[in-house]
């Protein structure tokens, strides 16, 4: 290798991933007329907000933030969501699955059914209400097998459906966000990030997180091989023993289907250390709704889920 080659600077892996995500968000801003960024208060969308700051500051974001609230979210997370949006001075829109239930567009099979999959309905209603032509989401390809094959710019028809066998080819960094009225593009700027990349980014950027990501004591029951938090919406069943354990959440979502893991990690560095040696995937450990069938995520995405 010549000295000239050695002198050439290449980006670290986090810088590269961040740069790619910034480029993707700017493409959305440049190509779409009415985009929105989905912000739940979870760690992936917290990273996306930092990427959006790096993409657009000192200007305002060229899109509002949207949260589809199942009504079963942890208070710590929704409080964080509101606080972060206010700090950034950006507009936050919240649409609620419970409103869709009141309208009759979401019908639960039973009162305690997990509401995650019903977010699709409320999301589609919000897309229609505001006329969004693109939704930026924090999904990652390492999360799940169906996601590994999804494009960064993923086309959805007017029913919000993903057709895995008919995806647009996506080459180089030339993205195609074109859609007709009523159709929609879902955009995943952190597609190429893994769980550990997200934690490393949070550490490097010193990003604040909702407290339940860190070890805390919480009443739980053991059910179906997992730990389930005991809350108002998820009470212990007769005969179950309630234990108080030191736990943290690896993902935060609907209370009824998001389980914590036992952990002593009180800061991001300890979480990174734990993540590096874990033997269970993020969704496997903590997303009870994904375990139902081999293709459950693919099925939900075909129906309009993120």
């Amino acid at each position, binding site marked *: 290798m010549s000295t000239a080659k050695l002198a050439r600077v290449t980006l670290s*892996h986090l810088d590269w991933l961040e740069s*790619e995500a910034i480029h993707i968000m700017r493409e959305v801003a440049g190509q779409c007329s009415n985009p929105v960024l989905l912000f739940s208060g979870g760690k992936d969308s917290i990273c996306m907000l930092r990427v959006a700051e790096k993409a657009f500051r000192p200007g305002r974001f060229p899109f509002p933030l949207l949260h589809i609230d199942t009504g079963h979210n942890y208070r710590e997370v929704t409080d964080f969501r509101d606080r972060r949006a206010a700090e950034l001075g950006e507009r936050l829109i919240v649409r609620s699955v419970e409103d869709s239930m009141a309208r009759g567009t979401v019908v639960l099979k039973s009162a305690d059914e997990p509401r995650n999959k019903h977010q699709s309905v409320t999301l589609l209603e919000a897309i229609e209400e505001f006329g969004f032509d693109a939704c930026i989401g924090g999904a990652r390809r390492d999360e799940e097998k169906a996601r590994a094959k999804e494009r960064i710019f993923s086309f959805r028809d007017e029913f919000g459906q993903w057709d895995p066998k008919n995806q647009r080819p996506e080459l180089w960094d030339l993205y195609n966000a074109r859609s007709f009225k009523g159709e929609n593009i879902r955009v995943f700027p952190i597609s190429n990030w893994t769980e550990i990349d997200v934690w490393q980014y949070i550490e490097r950027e010193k990003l604040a997180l909702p407290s339940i990501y860190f070890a805390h004591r919480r009443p739980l029951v053991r059910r179906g091989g997992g730990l389930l938090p005991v809350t108002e919406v998820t009470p212990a069943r007769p005969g179950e023993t309630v234990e108080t354990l030191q736990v943290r959440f690896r993902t935060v979502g609907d209370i009824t289907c998001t389980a914590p893991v036992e952990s002593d990690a009180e800061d991001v560095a300890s979480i990174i250390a734990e993540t590096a040696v874990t033997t*269970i995937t993020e969704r496997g450990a903590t997303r009870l709704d994904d375990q139902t069938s081999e293709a459950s995520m693919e099925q939900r995405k075909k129906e309009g889920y993120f």
Partner: protein
Amino acid sequence: MSAIEKLPAEDIPDNGLLRFLTCGSVDDGKSTLIGRLLYDSKTILADTLHAIQRSSARRGLDIVDLSLLTDGLQAEREQGITIDVAYRYFTTGTRKYIIADAPGHEQYTRNMVTAASTADLAIILIDARKGVLTQTRRHSYVAHLLGIPHIVVAVNKMDLVDYAQETFDRIRSDYLDFANGLGIADVRFIPLSALHGDMIVERGERLHWYDGPTLFEMLEGAPAIHSEHDEKFRFPVQYVCRPQDSANPELHDYRGFLGRVESGELHVGDRVTVLPSGLESRVRDIQVLGQSLPRAVAEQSVSILLDDEIDISRGDMIVRSGELPQVSKNIDAMLCWLSESPLDPRRKYLLRHTTRDSKAMLAAIAFRVDINSMQQQPAERLLMNDIARVSFRLAQPIFADPYAESRGTGAFIIIDESTNNTVAAGMIV
């Protein structure tokens, strides 16, 4: 503890990110190879492995089918084939890898083209028992066409040919015969047994006659940049930041030109030319989130501020003065047709190059390439998976470089405005 089990830590140098492509079919042991890369780097976690064991058992298999790891879609599992490109991730502690896993079959050439478009290195798998096949030539041609700078020919299943050096040497010499004809420059060969793990992370004991690096050493040592020659600075403008309404009066005149450096490097103080206007200015600042940077390097997303107030919008390009690209409304290119509807020479299409769109019409098809024989043939129209040398006439000029010199400013896609589908990928000659 093998090298790849190290945990990411502050004191380990960050060797960036390498994107590579694996080409081959399940028969070549590609899934086993990927499975081993993921398994040895501890990327397959226990619950995923259990899920695959359950699926394998349900299909009546008595061994764990690692291809189930990469076949993510329902239709693929039903048909036992890989339809689409899957992206996989692993890290060695010093470097992050993105594998683009492309299906091997001829009818999926378009998927291989897609996967190859972002790869810096290609691993081409050859079954040691079968040697260089038509498929090997096809994969090598596409990898070369898409300008992948480093090619690793992995001669797999060495265990089934008694680890014989003669077999490896013969395949190597066969491969070089046609690779030289194609003009492939950087090609390396490695004997492997993905099944037994020989020469992947560990050297094993039965390939003692091979003294080159293991596959992991090759990956760790490959440059994590697409091109090793000095490229010219190219900055297509994606968006303009003008926070006029800000409460901060200092920002009233702020104009940041937002984009990602497609190639080359820019320093504060450099003279630049803006296309298409041709106006010149000087770089006043390079920023990311309020921080000033002394320079911007390839693949970095930044905001550029200039000394002069010049009208610049999305689709314009900032380059260093004296290093101008070609400004042209006529382009010659190699084109891969990706759509089920054939190329219609009478229709107008949309050509997207960097951040710029232009209406485009086919001017001529010089020839079509038979990717199995590499023969050039005359063609009237193009069908899905066809590769051809073509020329287009454009309504608006684009600012382009030959693809061989700069991927970012040499590549384009064709969009069919009646469906909004991406129907072709092109590389400017």
